[in-house]
């Protein structure tokens, strides 16, 4: 099936968005290795099709909640390099004035209610955002991103129950990357994750999280249904993280093999998969895709330089924003 112009642009946009995330993470990792970034951070590389496929089905007024592995969600929902790198480096121009850091990036203007350093901690927030939409009779939809590990948190079942009882416009997006920290999903999840959602009367779907077009198609469908009051929904997206649990998790053969890692990187990379498709459909040539990559890399490098030279918050900020004054 020959793609029409609209789809061509859209597919290129998917490609660019995924590339932006990958490039962002490569730079963040390098900042860590160069000891220029305070603390640790969790890389989204490998999972780009999940965030991009879903967020491209959303509009700006739709909301998302994100996780400790949140850079991808944040970029996919519209964030820019400068403010993100500034936040990662604790600079005042960051999305949270340097107060949140990697694990708490929020981008209110684009509808990102924030990353969360408590696994599963944003499930209530996401569901509450959907409740707000319903109370306001708005047709905004909220997407709650979380990992397979977060399915062990009881909070998820509490809020899915209420979302189902009250038919809230929310989509629970479980990024199943096979691991929570250093433990495989089989070791921590009995039964079936999809069946758990279904047992609460929630329609649930499994999708290849490396295929951005498949993800986007399913997400677009469900978002439209949720807008019409037919939510909630649940999606399990099968994916993989390329790096360690965090940037410092270098020696990981004791919990997963190099072979497995290589297999995903070589054969199931979401950017490559879309790239091959674009080439085979004649939408973009290899050179064009390379050009996209290098443009974005330059933008990222500029942003890194900008962030490295940006100012830290003034020390007087330390006790600002504990409370909002009226």
């Amino acid at each position, binding site marked *: 099936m020959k793609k029409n112009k609209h789809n061509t642009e859209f597919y290129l946009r998917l490609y660019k968005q995924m590339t932006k995330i990958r490039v962002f993470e490569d730079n963040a990792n390098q900042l860590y290795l160069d000891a220029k970034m305070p603390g640790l951070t969790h890389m989204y590389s490998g999972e780009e099709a999940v965030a991009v496929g879903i967020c491209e089905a959303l509009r700006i007024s739709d*909301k998302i*909640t994100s996780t400790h592995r949140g850079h991808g969600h944040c970029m996919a929902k519209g964030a820019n390099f400068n403010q993100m790198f500034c936040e990662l480096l604790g600079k005042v121009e*960051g*999305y*949270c*004035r*340097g*107060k*949140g850091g990697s694990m*708490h990036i*929020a981008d*209110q203007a684009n509808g990102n*209610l*924030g990353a*969360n350093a*408590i696994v599963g*901690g*944003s*499930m*209530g*927030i*996401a*569901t*509450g*955002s*959907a*409740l*707000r*939409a319903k*109370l*306001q009779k708005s047709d905004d939809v*909220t997407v709650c991103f979380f990992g397979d590990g977060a399915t062990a948190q*009881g*909070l998820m079942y*509490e*809020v899915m*129950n*209420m979302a189902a*009882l009250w038919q809230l416009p929310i989509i629970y997006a479980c990024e199943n990357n096979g691991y929570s920290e250093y433990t495989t999903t089989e070791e921590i999840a009995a039964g079936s994750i999809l069946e758990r959602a279904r047992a609460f009367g929630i329609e649930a779907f499994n999708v290849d999280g490396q295929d951005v077009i498949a993800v986007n198609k399913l997400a677009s469908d469900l978002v439209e249904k949720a807008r019409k009051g037919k939510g909630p929904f649940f999606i399990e997206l099968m994916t993989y993280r390329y790096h360690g649990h965090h940037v410092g998790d270098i020696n990981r053969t004791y919990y997963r093999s190099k072979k497995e890692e290589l297999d995903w990187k070589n054969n199931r990379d979401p950017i490559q998969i879309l790239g091959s498709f674009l080439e085979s459909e004649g939408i973009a040539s290899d050179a064009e895709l390379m050009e996209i990559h290098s443009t974005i890399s330059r933008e990222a490098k500029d942003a890194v330089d900008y962030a490295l030279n940006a100012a830290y918050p003034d020390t007087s900020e330390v006790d*600002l*924003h*504990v*409370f*909002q004054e*009226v």
Partner: protein
Amino acid sequence: MPEITLSQAVNQAIAEEMRRDSNVFLIGEDVAEAGTPFKVTSGLVEEFSTERVIDTPISEPGFMGLAVGAAMTGSRPIVDLMFGDFLFLVMDQLCNQAAKIHYMSGGKLNVPLVLRTNLGATRRSAAQHSQSLHALVAHVPGLKVAMPSSAYEAKGLLKTAIRDNNPVVIFEDKLMYQDKAFVPDEEYLLPFGEAAILKEGRDVTLIGTSSMRQVCERAAILLDKDGINAEVIDPRTIVPLDENTILNSVKKTSRAVVVDEGHQNFGTTAEIASRISEKAFYYLDAPVIRMGAMDVPIPFSPVLEDLTVPTAERVAENARKIVSGELVHAL
């Protein structure tokens, strides 16, 4: 000025604010038709419908989380937590999320929610339904903590809480729901961080939060009979705490007894007493006396339970001792 119960005062505050602002809604277990086990919210669902008076499953962490998310996106939820003891279930959503979101987002997001719950023992409800846990939330930056001591405060502080743009935890004394007080006909709000001087005095300052305000007032009457003139102060909110009113009083009286129904150890009396001892150091004629609940889980048996909470008699006795120079604890 009509005399109404604390329960009616809370009900009025919620109804008035719900009428004023369509973003306000109420959520909790059995808050709608049942009007809560204490019948505090009766009638609200009839006026505001089940859209804004929302009965939940028994999922305290869950509906607390929902409220945080709704508040972040424009609502002003009032969460009804049936017993203060259930705070332990919602601590993550309250303290790791609600309390920190404004700060972590560099001031971009905020969480205007009110968590209404209660405190107070001697209701024969045993260890898991009798705790006064306000000191725990007061320790967490980003939360305000209000402790109404009568129907008058309950209404005025709750209305202020609902209009505050930050998460506020308000503790009602569950033994006081049927107690009456005069309340103005006109609308009124009580500011946070302003203590009330309920009785002026010159010999000793009695500081009592929530349920312990009445205990201090009764103690003051007992002391009057002995010719001891006590000043009685109700802080009304413990975060923010009106340090000035307390310190000014102690500078005048040179003596203080701090009375609170939370456990004494690592509790509210420690914070207030240590601030007085530090900041009014040169004015004190005697050690500041702390009287919290005993540091034991609340026992069921009435003969034991009644021992755990400060009484007017014991407050008066301690005040007498420090006024007469006979010390209570000092070694």
